[in-house]
């Protein structure tokens, strides 16, 4: 009959109206500047640089290898490697700029970085008044601690950390073997080996970490060592669930 449908409709809206007052599940609005929704882990927008330890510039994992600069499709990365007085590369970037008004958030830089030095950020409040200056991020603005990385991408970060620790453990083991082979020589290498074999790249071990990094970087050209994930065993891959999730884009496989 005419009107029944209208009354039903009025009932629906009335239910919404009343429900929004006593049922918090209905009122889904978050009051943005005060409240924020937790972003999903796989959210990404622009890259940042990870550093270990507390020193922002010195702790950068980046070695200025320029792979990302080459691979970047819109060419928004600009790197000048740092050199010491003698002109030798210090394996640090002197200039590392990303123009995020150009960046297209493709994550290719993250994919190609052999050192896990560049990661995708979740910072979205990037509105600026000056387009040419403030959106061109410098090295200092890009550098963020590993703890931040762990905070925004916990699963991925744990995996990366585990991998780095593994690499470091291998390097340590190698160094230890070398040391034992040369046991007779001296016990000078002891302090370096005293480094605990566990994972934490905690702030406490900044110097050991960099020290541990060095063998890894030194070992990079060798085929077995590089921490590129696809080389992991399939068993481990399936057991951990989503170790490759950030890269293959199949979360929760």
């Amino acid at each position: 009959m005419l009107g029944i449908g209208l009354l039903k409709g009025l009932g629906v809206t009335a239910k919404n109206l009343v429900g929004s007052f006593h049922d918090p599940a209905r009122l889904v609005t978050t009051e943005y500047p005060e409240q924020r929704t937790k972003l999903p882990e796989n959210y990404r927008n622009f890259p940042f640089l990870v550093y270990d330890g507390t020193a922002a510039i010195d702790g950068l994992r980046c070695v200025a290898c320029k792979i990302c600069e080459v691979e970047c499709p819109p060419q928004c990365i600009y790197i000048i490697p740092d050199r010491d007085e003698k002109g030798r590369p210090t394996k640090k970037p002197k200039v590392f700029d990303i123009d995020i008004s150009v960046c297209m958030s493709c994550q290719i830089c993250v994919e190609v970085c052999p050192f896990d030095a560049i990661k995708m950020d979740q910072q979205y409040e990037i509105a600026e008044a000056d387009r040419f200056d403030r959106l061109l991020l410098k090295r200092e603005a890009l550098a963020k601690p590993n703890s931040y990385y762990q905070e925004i991408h916990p699963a991925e970060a744990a995996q990366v950390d585990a991998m780095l620790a593994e690499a470091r453990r291998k390097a340590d083991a190698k160094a230890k073997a070398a040391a034992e082979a040369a046991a007779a020589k001296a016990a000078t290498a002891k302090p370096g080996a005293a480094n605990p074999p566990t994972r934490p790249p905690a702030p406490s071990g900044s110097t050991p970490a960099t020290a541990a990094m060095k063998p890894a970087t030194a070992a990079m050209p060798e085929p077995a060592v590089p921490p590129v994930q696809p080389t992991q065993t399939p068993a481990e891959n399936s057991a951990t669930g989503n170790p490759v999730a950030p890269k293959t884009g199949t979360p929760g496989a």
Partner: protein
Amino acid sequence: MTLVQLSRVTPGVSDWFFQSLSSPFIAAAGDSRLERLPIIARDLLTSRLPEPWRWWLNSLLAILVVLFGFAILFALLTLVERKVLGRVQNRPGPNRTGLPFTKLRLFGLGQPLADGIKMLTKEDIVPRSADKLLHFLAPVALLAFSILTFAVLPFGRNLVPVELDAGILYFFAAGAGTELAVFMAGWASRNKYSLLAAMRALAQLISYELPLLLSFVPVIMMAGTLSTTGVVEAQAGWKFGFIPHWHVLTPWGFAAFVIFMVSALAESNRSPFDLPEAESELIAGHLTEYSGFKYALFFMAEYFGMCALSAMAVTLFLGGWRAPLPFLEIVPSYVWFALKLFALLFGFIWIRATFPRLRIDQLTRFAWKFLVPMALINLGTAAFWSLTCNWSGPLQLARWAIALALVAGPFVVMGRKLSRDYAPRTYRYA
């Protein structure tokens, strides 16, 4: 040119006209102090003055109180509407604009103020080829006609600005001017959409004016008067001591009330009859070429019209300022009036939140093929009701049964037909 102005120019000659205008806010007798509060307050201000001045000041006060009251109501209503719409859609609605320069939010109470400031400071654009005079006159005329209608509404016991013998007729005569203003706006804009919208608006307003007028004829018939206070007077008393004698509680009265409210929705261009201002179809229709303060005036007029029609519905059908139960009469009459008015306004908002907009052919068909015949049949029902007013005993039941059948039968029959016509249409090429 309001009535008050009209009488102002002829003070000496037509003295009788003064009497017919009957000093606004007549002094009440025998009511509680609370009930007489507005009159006491007024007398405090003006009782010392000599007679002609006192009359003038009383009139002026009445006008000011009504105008400011409804202006504030308008401001609040915009906010309440947005908040209710938000709640219906599971949003909080505007809640951030509070007191200026403070952190106080006050549930967004500052929103109307902010809107007002925005509207006032916007650039007033007049199209180059527009008819400048009419373009300016349209919003002014619209608002003026809307405000005129407030003159005869009984806001409470003895609280009626102008007591007219033909008050209801005056109300609708003044309301008829809004159509003219809408047309002026549409035509003066020199915009095809505006003109089209104006024509649509005219068609809609004329179509719905008919059921609107026909729906309250039964009330006049039963009350035997065209005066608003008389109609309220006719709804005095309670049956069995607890069922008020409101017109809405009779079969014909209920039908007339529904017809009246539907027509009022259309007359005030409210959703779901807001075709003339349909943004998505006519780029806001006759409002397209208006901006800034003129636009605000249009909106103000629309809300004033809505308030006035709701107030008239309260007067005609819901017993005006009368309390629903005898013991509730200790609450002053103007509070009751305000409560009923708010209830109806909330209904307007609720309907807006619920129903989608009609198509123009559905709109006119609904008016001509459903509302007008229903209103005419309802007239017959009311005639039957008034002829059988001395039936009693089992006849009283028979009277109810017949009246209900007279209302429900045509409703079902015509409603069936109408529902068939409104069935989802099948398109050949879509």
